[in-house]
């Protein structure tokens, strides 16, 4: 792909990002309830103080001007003050973000590690019992409501078998100093293997719950693309040359069959963002998703606005990366 084409695609992102920001801004501007009144709460202040507060927040300016101020501030990661935390929104989000990223990455790994072997096996053993079970499994995977599946896992592994924890990221006794914010890394940096094991036990059920729909989709994609590749002439040729079946499958077929899987995985990583809110709520995971849900009920609108914008921008960028990745991996496709 030429640099010109890449620049063209990057430029096409600008109107989308602006449109996304406009929608987020309008969403919150039209939200019922005066932000100043919400901030004041039960405190009694004079009308002059109220007017001053309104001026300070820029709420006395016209809507169009406020939008451009919002964009200008957003570019500098300035999203105002969280009403509830009485601290800058960017700071509160930054605190919660590592937990969400860590959970999403582990869910992605769980999905890839499960889906690819199962999809390949289903394709190799087409129409076998295993293939049919895999098909049923993938249908169940996309039909299971994530919040319910999470609760079922909790009931089984945390309540009945009592082998995994119910909620949180790590036990109190295993806490380690924060370096990166990613507990799986911080525990290793601290050289505390027991704490690392504890963090792994905490993340397992949320990651499986979050990764399940993605596993189901990726398994289907891998199976379909593997079947397609196995029908290609070059695979027949490799077979005819007398190469071992294992070599044909893993060296020749799988490499090409994984192109759509990688591309779909990149797109589906964006959908993990939405699933995060549900999974973090079910498992008491202290990430951004749970913070957003809590903030909605606290009417903490600056935080909701910033988080929705953050999610949307990340989603747009992930889709962009998926597009580019697909083109790079598959030179027959042009942007």
């Amino acid at each position, binding site marked *: 792909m030429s640099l010109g084409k890449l620049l063209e695609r990057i430029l096409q992102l600008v*109107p989308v*990002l602006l*449109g996304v920001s406009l*929608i987020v801004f309008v969403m919150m501007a039209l939200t019922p309830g005066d932000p100043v009144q919400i901030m004041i709460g039960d405190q009694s202040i004079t009308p002059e103080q109220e007017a001053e507060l309104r001026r300070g927040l820029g709420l006395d300016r016209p809507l169009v001007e406020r939008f451009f101020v919002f964009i200008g501030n957003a570019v500098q990661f300035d999203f105002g003050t969280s009403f509830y935390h009485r601290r800058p929104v960017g700071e509160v989000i930054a605190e919660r973000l590592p937990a969400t990223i860590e959970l999403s990455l582990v869910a992605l790994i769980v999905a890839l590690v499960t889906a690819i072997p199962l999809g390949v096996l289903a394709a190799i053993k087409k129409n076998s019992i295993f293939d049919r079970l895999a098909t049923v499994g993938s249908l169940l995977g996309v*039909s299971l409501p994530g919040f*319910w599946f999470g609760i079922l896992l909790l009931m089984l592994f945390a309540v009945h078998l009592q082998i995994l924890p119910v909620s949180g990221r790590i036990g109190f006794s295993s806490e380690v100093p924060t370096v990166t914010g990613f507990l799986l890394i911080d525990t290793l940096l601290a050289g505390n293997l027991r704490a690392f094991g504890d963090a792994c036990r905490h993340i397992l059920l949320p990651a499986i719950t979050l990764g399940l729909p993605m596993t189901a989709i990726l398994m289907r994609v891998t199976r379909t693309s593997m079947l397609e590749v196995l029908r290609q002439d070059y695979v027949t040729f490799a077979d005819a040359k007398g190469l071992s079946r294992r070599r044909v499958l893993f060296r020749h077929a799988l490499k090409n069959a994984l192109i759509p899987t990688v591309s779909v995985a990149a797109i589906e990583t964006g959908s993990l963002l939405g699933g995060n809110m549900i999974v973090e709520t079910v498992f008491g995971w202290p990430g951004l998703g749970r913070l957003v849900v809590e903030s909605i009920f606290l009417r903490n609108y600056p935080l909701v606005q910033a988080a929705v914008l953050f999610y949307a921008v990340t989603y747009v960028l992930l889709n962009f990366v998926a597009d580019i990745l697909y083109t790079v991996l598959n030179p027959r496709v042009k942007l």
Partner: protein
Amino acid sequence: MSLTETTPQTHAADSLFRRNLAMFAANRLAMASAVVVVLFVVMAIFAPWIAPHDPNETDLFRRLQPPGWAPGGEWAYLLGCDALGRDILSRIIYGARISIFIGLAVIVVATMIGILAGLASGYLRGWVDVVISRIVDILLGFPYLIFAIGLMAMMGPGLWNIILALAYKEWVIPARVVRGETLATRELEYVEAARALGASRWHIMLREILPNILSPVIVVSTIRMAHVIILEASLSFLGLGVQPPTASWGSMVADGRAFILEAWWVSTFPGLAILLLVLAINVASQGLRDAFDPRFAE
């Protein structure tokens, strides 16, 4: 020939539709799933006659009463009772109304808007296409659940607000399908012929193109309905859906979350209802897709 007369094109589409329908009927798993969906719809419509108890009637003496077959249970309360002593089976039966009504309403509203936008975008081209395509791109820039949560935060919970919050983004899916199909169809001879006969743009879009591209739209809408039902349940689970005491499956699962230690049935059965309905819709819609869109048949 008058433009409103039935053309050979319409006859061909009609017989193709019947052939596809016969192909769908031959798929036993898809048909069985369609029957399950119909049973859920019947259950929702006749809820007041089918439900054994009033879904909102509380009885603290029956608080967290186990299912009928378990020790301490009563057959009159087959699936047990929740923390307020309400009959879970009756609430599931009434909850079907919310899930199915919202699913259908969102899909109908979104499909109608999507068809109009997609037809206009694909047939009129020019600035109409540019504007609609940009709006579609921007809305696709939001993860679905987050967009819906943002809107629900803005509008507040409630039945009509959920329908609006989900339909605001859902229409882009049929719009994209219709646009693509319209782009391919607008250059065909029969559309050219209608244009040559002086038919208006709206006549060509709605009477000539639409009937011939409806199959993929119906298939996509059916597949999307399962997704919408899960989204509605997710919003209700988060407390942003239909408000208590109205029974909705998502909020019933959420209610039971606090009692998983002592009363597994409170969350389990409503979740099972969601799974059954969504699974049945998914299998039936796959059958529809295989029958109506041969590109997908394996």
